[in-house]
């Protein structure tokens, strides 16, 4: 039940040609700057834009293949959608919004509502089941929209910038809940986003799109640790570490990372490679995060060098070629890495 998409669309002088596959039970992030072709990709999968070339196959059936004159209309695709604007039906309660797809499938009203209530309760929204969308907070409305799309168990779930419309103060928690809900989804989930944090925290696999072409595709770990272009490196080439936070300390596999701002519970910590400083001896000074490391490999990335380090935690550092010469690094060299706590960010997971 995989998705194989080769999407060729020409729209108003814009030329999109991207190919990727996605697997059930996994979350694929389609990442790229605004205008890269993310939304058109999404609409082609949804069926609101027809392909000019290529082919989309989902779970063994062809959704769109202009060469074979095959096209399945959006209503007939087993594709769920969470819009950026959510588009919850304003005249229906949260419960009836979630129950809508079940009712359309012919499930009796009482049963559909019971199942909707169950789903809402699982996301902590039992008290809001009877509320209209206008009475919900941004984060609550986002959860309801997600449940509405998931309740009919689509083969493919599309999420268009699911967190962009949210207030930054609730984005972290909503993202965590979205992540947990997507973990339980057995179909294919595709998250379209311009925010690298969404991709880093939600995705198993990543497609990076630039100027209508795939810049890089792979598992999240591959793309973050081995970005193939400067652009991808800037977007996603970061150190992503899972840990458990207590105040400003994060425990990760026996190593402690110090944060500037307190966090609590399961978190992701991002360490930008350019924030990792390398030293030949244990550094003096204020950086509280310092670890003895061994250079594993050195790769050029544009004007800079990416140094992959082994040690208490795997880390990638980015330094200039001049620094590389000064430090006289090569594979196997022992170095100290240090990072200022203010360079780190923690996100609930």
């Amino acid at each position: 039940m995989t998705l194989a998409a080769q999407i060729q669309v020409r729209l108003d002088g814009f030329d999109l040609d991207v190919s990727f596959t996605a697997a059930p039970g996994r979350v694929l992030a389609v990442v790229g700057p605004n205008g890269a072709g993310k939304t058109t990709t999404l609409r082609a999968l949804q069926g609101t834009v027809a392909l000019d070339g290529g082919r989309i196959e989902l779970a063994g059936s062809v959704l769109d293949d202009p060469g074979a004159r095959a096209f399945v209309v959006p209503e007939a695709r087993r594709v769920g959608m969470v819009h950026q604007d959510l588009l919850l039906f304003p005249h229906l309660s949260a419960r009836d919004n979630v129950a809508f797809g079940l009712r359309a499938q012919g499930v009796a009203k009482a049963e559909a509502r019971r199942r909707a209530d169950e789903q809402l309760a699982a996301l902590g929204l039992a008290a809001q089941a009877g509320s209209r969308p206008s009475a919900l907070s941004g984060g609550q409305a986002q959860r309801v929209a997600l449940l509405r799309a998931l309740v009919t168990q689509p083969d493919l779930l599309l999420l268009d910038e699911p967190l962009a419309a949210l207030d930054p103060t609730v984005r972290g928690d909503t993202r965590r809940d979205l992540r947990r809900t997507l973990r339980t989804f057995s179909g294919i989930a595709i998250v379209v986003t311009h925010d690298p944090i969404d991709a880093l925290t939600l995705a198993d696999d990543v497609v990076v799109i630039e100027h209508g072409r795939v810049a890089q595709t792979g598992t999240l770990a591959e793309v973050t640790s081995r970005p193939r272009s400067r652009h991808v490196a800037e977007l996603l080439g970061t150190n992503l570490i899972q840990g458990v936070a207590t105040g400003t300390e994060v425990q990760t596999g026996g190593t402690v990372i110090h944060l500037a701002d307190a966090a609590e519970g399961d978190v992701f910590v991002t360490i930008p490679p350019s924030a990792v400083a390398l030293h030949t001896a244990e550094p003096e000074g204020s950086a509280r995060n310092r670890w003895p490391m061994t250079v594993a490999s050195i790769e050029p990335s544009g004007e800079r060098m990416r140094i992959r380090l082994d040690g208490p935690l795997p880390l990638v550092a980015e330094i200039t070629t001049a620094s590389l010469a000064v430090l006289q690094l090569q594979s196997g060299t022992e170095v100290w890495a240090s990072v200022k706590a203010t360079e780190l960010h923690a996100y609930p997971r």
Partner: protein
Amino acid sequence: MLLAAVVALLLFALPLIGLLQRADWGNLLDDLRSPTSTAAMRLSIETSLMATVLAVALGMPLAWVLARTDIPGKAAVRALVLLPMVLPPVVGGVALLSAFSRRSPLGSWLYDVFGIQLTFSPAGVVLAEAFVAMPFFVITVEAALRGLDARYEQVAAGLGASPTQVFRRVTLPLIAPAVAAGAILSWARALGEFGATITFAGNIAGRTRTLPLAIYLQLESDPESAIALSLVLLLVSFAVLVGLRDRWLGGARR
């Protein structure tokens, strides 16, 4: 400027004041309870409600076609729909007469085959009222359909709803306020209909003599009762205005 505005306001207010001042308040209820008055009121209520039902039942699909489809000659269709709003009602009555009188092909066919005679019958009153009232419903609902974010309907379809389910469970509830407003406007227009009714359906007591016709007739014979009936229609008009205040009077809630 201000003076002219005051004059304009007086133009509206003076007739109202005149009507209220000439009313015989002591005998008002007796005037309204007279058999002539009650017959006219009952007929008016019945025919105007039926005309409203007709306007809603036929106007809804028409509004939908105008708002959502790309049929050729749509501008001409819309002009045709709006024509009764600007057409002198008496001309509308003459036109209805030409089409549905027993001497016309359609009217004679209706009579010969079904035994239906529209002229000089309560059914004719309903038809005349619907003719002038339906445009109000159609333009109100069409505007609402145009203003509706079509993505809600797409979402509903994407969740597996059939076109009928989409209309019944999403489109209709979202435009419900406009449907109600359009129906009330149509009803108010139907209730006050005079010209087309008297021309097409005539002025037969108990059969086609609606409130406005009764008022006109009784102004000669029984002015007190004509004024009492006028006050009834005035009251209805005020009620409609209050009911639609959010839409028309720039209500604070919008």
